Every structure is written in structure tokens, then in C-alpha cells.
């Protein structure tokens, strides 16, 4: 179930994004959606493998950046064809459903040929390419600055309304898994979990960053919303709070919203970044356990540490992150509430 829904996110998104983009450019919605999904598939897959299966890595959040590019490109192709009036025209007597699908034939063909040329003929895979571009940047330096920079960029993307985890953080999953694997091998050899070499093990999906970022950047907001007198905020706090415990933060980020909200972006970005820095320092100290078990990303933060490291002391990181988040939001939240009240008047 999880693989078919969450790990196919880019596939769904390439349809929805193309549909919305097409609608805003006054194009036929269904044609835009289908051209988007077709271009995404051709651009990422490059054919079936020997046993007749397909490679699904690009469908997960790793491929979200590619999905954005392909859906925007393909809808633009559709738009160009409509603007210059190129296409097969059916006589007026033909039912509109058939006429529409025929008029989308040439743009779909053009868009698919471009994608196929890049992917299959030039053998250029953008998803792997993005991963290899990041490789020297990450693998050479697993330190506190990398951790903070990664979180900073991810949160910056979120605050622009883009899915930061999918677009940027997901690119680091291969390294995170590699480090996790090396840690796990050492544990199997009998090394204690506090002496492991990789602090950022599990970067991308699980691990240290998942423990610090949303604890600092989202949980304080949920608490503030719950104790707020404003009816809208209180209701949102209840509905968005439950998924937020399981680190599903989209309802808060898009619902409050944090995205493109000038009052909350500054504490949002900095609380997560600072708490990651502090968390890194704590975890790299010799008396704190490091991650060696892959924990699914929807695990609540206070369980993530004890389960993934086998060290109950890691809960301290979550508590400290939460306090940092509270302190960051404290000066900004009243201003935001005041601006909401002003708007209501």
C-alpha cells in the first residue's frame, strides 16, 4: 500500500501539476494531464527491463523535481501548438471528445519524442544525474555544516510552497542509506551504537534530521494553534496536529499556511536549521547513540531515536529541538495573530 501511494508520488504529481498548469493557460485539462504523465514516464523510464518490469525509483519523491520539469515542459508544448494553431482538425460534426483527443495528438507526439530522444537516444537519466551531481558535495563532508545547509535549503523550498523533502532532501537518500548500512555492519560486529562513525546515517528519509527539523519547525506551531483563542487556528490545530505527530507536516505548511507567509517563514527556516546544528553536536558526542536501523519516515520523533539507535537518551535531542523551536517562534507568533485579527476586521 505504502509503495503504491507514497512512493508513486511523482507519478501522481506529474498528472495533477500538468492539469493545473494547463487549466491556468486555458488549455484542455484532460489533455494537459495526460501529456504530463506520458512525458514523465517516457523521460524517466527509458523502456522495460529484461524481465518486463519497470524501475520505480523515479516515481518516488526522488523524481519530484523531474516531474515538475516534465509536466511544465509538456504543457508548454501543448500551449505552443495551440497558439500557432497546429494540429489535426476534425469537422464540426465529430463529437467533442474525439475532436479534442485528435487535436492533442501532435503535441503529445512532439513532447514524447523530445523526452524519448533525451532519455533513450542520448541515454541521459536526470534522476541519477542529480544524485551524482550531489555526490561529491555530500560524501566528502559529513559534518555539521552540511547538515545545516541541507536543512536550510529544504526549509527554504518549503517556505516557497515547494515540497522541499521531495525536491531536495530526497536526493540524499542514497548516501543516507549507505551510511546507515555501514553503521549497521559495525553494530553486527559488536561495536556499541555510541561509537559509530556516521552521525547523519539515514539522511533523506529518516535519521537525525527527521528528529530535529519538524520538532522545531512545526510542533511549536501546533501547540500555539491549540492554545490560541482564534477559532480557525484552534480547529486547524486539532486537525493538523494529529498528522504532525507522525511527522506529516503538509497540512500545517499548506493549511496555516507557513508557505509564503512573511510572518512565519523566518522562524520556520531558522528553528529547523539551528535545532539540526544543536542535534548534530549532541549526537556526535561519544555518549549519544547513532542511527543504525532504517525507521520509516512516519514514525513520531520521540520514538524515532530510541527505536533507530537503541539509545533512550536520544529523546533529549527531540526535547531540546522543541524548546529551540518554541523560542524561535515566540516573538513572531503574536505578530502573525495580530495581522490575522486585522484582516478579519
Amino acid at each position, binding site marked *: 500500500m505504502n509503495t503504491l501511494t507514497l512512493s508513486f508520488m511523482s507519478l501522481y504529481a506529474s498528472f495533477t501539476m500538468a492539469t*493545473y498548469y494547463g487549466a491556468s493557460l486555458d488549455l484542455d485539462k484532460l489533455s494537459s494531464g495526460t501529456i504530463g504523465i506520458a512525458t514523465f514516464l517516457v523521460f524517466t523510464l527509458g523502456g522495460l527491463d529484461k524481465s518486463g518490469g519497470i524501475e520505480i525509483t523515479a516515481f518516488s519523491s526522488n523524481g519530484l523535481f523531474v516531474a515538475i520539469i516534465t509536466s511544465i515542459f509538456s504543457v508548454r508544448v501543448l500551449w505552443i501548438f495551440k497558439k500557432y494553431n497546429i494540429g489535426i482538425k476534425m469537422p464540426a460534426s465529430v463529437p467533442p471528445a474525439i475532436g479534442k483527443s485528435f487535436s492533442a495528438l501532435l503535441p503529445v507526439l512532439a513532447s514524447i519524442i523530445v523526452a524519448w530522444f533525451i532519455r533513450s537516444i542520448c541515454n541521459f537519466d536526470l534522476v541519477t544525474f542529480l544524485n551524482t551531481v550531489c555526490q561529491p558535495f555530500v560524501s566528502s563532508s559529513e559534518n555539521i555544516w552540511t547538515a545545516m545547509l541541507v536543512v536550510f535549503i529544504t526549509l527554504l523550498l518549503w517556505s516557497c510552497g515547494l515540497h522541499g523533502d521531495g525536491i531536495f532532501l530526497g536526493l540524499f537518500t542514497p548516501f543516507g542509506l549507505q551510511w546507515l548500512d555501514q553503521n549497521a555492519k559495525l553494530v553486527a560486529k559488536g561495536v556499541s551504537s555510541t561509537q559509530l562513525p556516521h552521525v547523519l546515517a539515514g539522511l533523506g528519509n529518516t535519521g537525525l534530521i527527521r528528529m530535529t527539523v519538524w520538532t522545531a519547525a512545526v510542533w511549536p506551531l501546533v501547540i500555539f494553534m491549540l492554545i490560541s483563542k482564534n477559532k480557525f487556528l484552534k480547529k486547524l490545530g486539532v486537525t493538523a496536529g494529529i498528522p504532525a505527530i507522525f511527522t506529516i507536516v503538509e497540512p500545517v505548511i499548506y493549511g496555516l499556511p507557513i*508557505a509564503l507567509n512573511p510572518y512565519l517563514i523566518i522562524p520556520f527556516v531558522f528553528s529547523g536549521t539551528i535545532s539540526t546544528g544543536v542535534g548534530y553536536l549532541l549526537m556526535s558526542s561519544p555518549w549519544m547513540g547513532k542511527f543504525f536501523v532504517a525507521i*520509516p519516515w512516519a514514525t513520531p520523533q520521540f520514538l524515532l531515536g530510541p527505536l533507530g539507535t537503541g539509545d533512550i537518551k536520544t529523546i533529549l535531542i527531540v526535547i531540546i529541538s522543541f524548546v529551540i523551536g518554541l523560542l524561535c517562534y515566540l516573538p513572531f507568533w503574536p505578530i502573525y495573530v495580530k495581522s490575522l485579527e486585522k484582516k478579519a476586521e
Partner: protein
Amino acid sequence: MPSIKMKFFDTMENKMQKITGPMARFSNLKVVQAIVNGLMGTMPIILSGAFFMILYVLGSPSIGTSGKALIPFLTPLASNFYG
């Protein structure tokens, strides 16, 4: 004291109003709108997937170091929740 606090809030508010304009312009770009709305459109699928993910977390014995699931009667279904 309260007057200093109010002054601080007011200057902050003025400063923030300055970024609101360009930010609103950026968010109203058709491309950005399409991406945000499109990602919002996948939300029902993602949230229902996350629901199964939670069940998997509760039911899988391979999570953590104890070798026991948090809710043992979910264990036989755990691989189905994930797969």
C-alpha cells in the same frame, strides 16, 4: 517595558509588510501556482498512504532493536501495509 515591546512588534510588522509584495507576486506566477496546487492535489493519496505507513510502523517487528512489534496482532499484515 510594554511600550518598548510594542515598538519592536510594530517595526517588525512594517519590515514584514515590505516582503509581502514580492512574495505574493512570486506565489501568483502560473508555474508556482500549478506546482503548489498540483502537490496539494496529491494530498489525499499521500495521506491515505501515510495511514498505512503508520500501521506498518506499529505492526512491524523489524523496527527498532527489541525484535518485538509495538502492536503484535498487526504483525502478520505488516508486509502488506508496506508493499
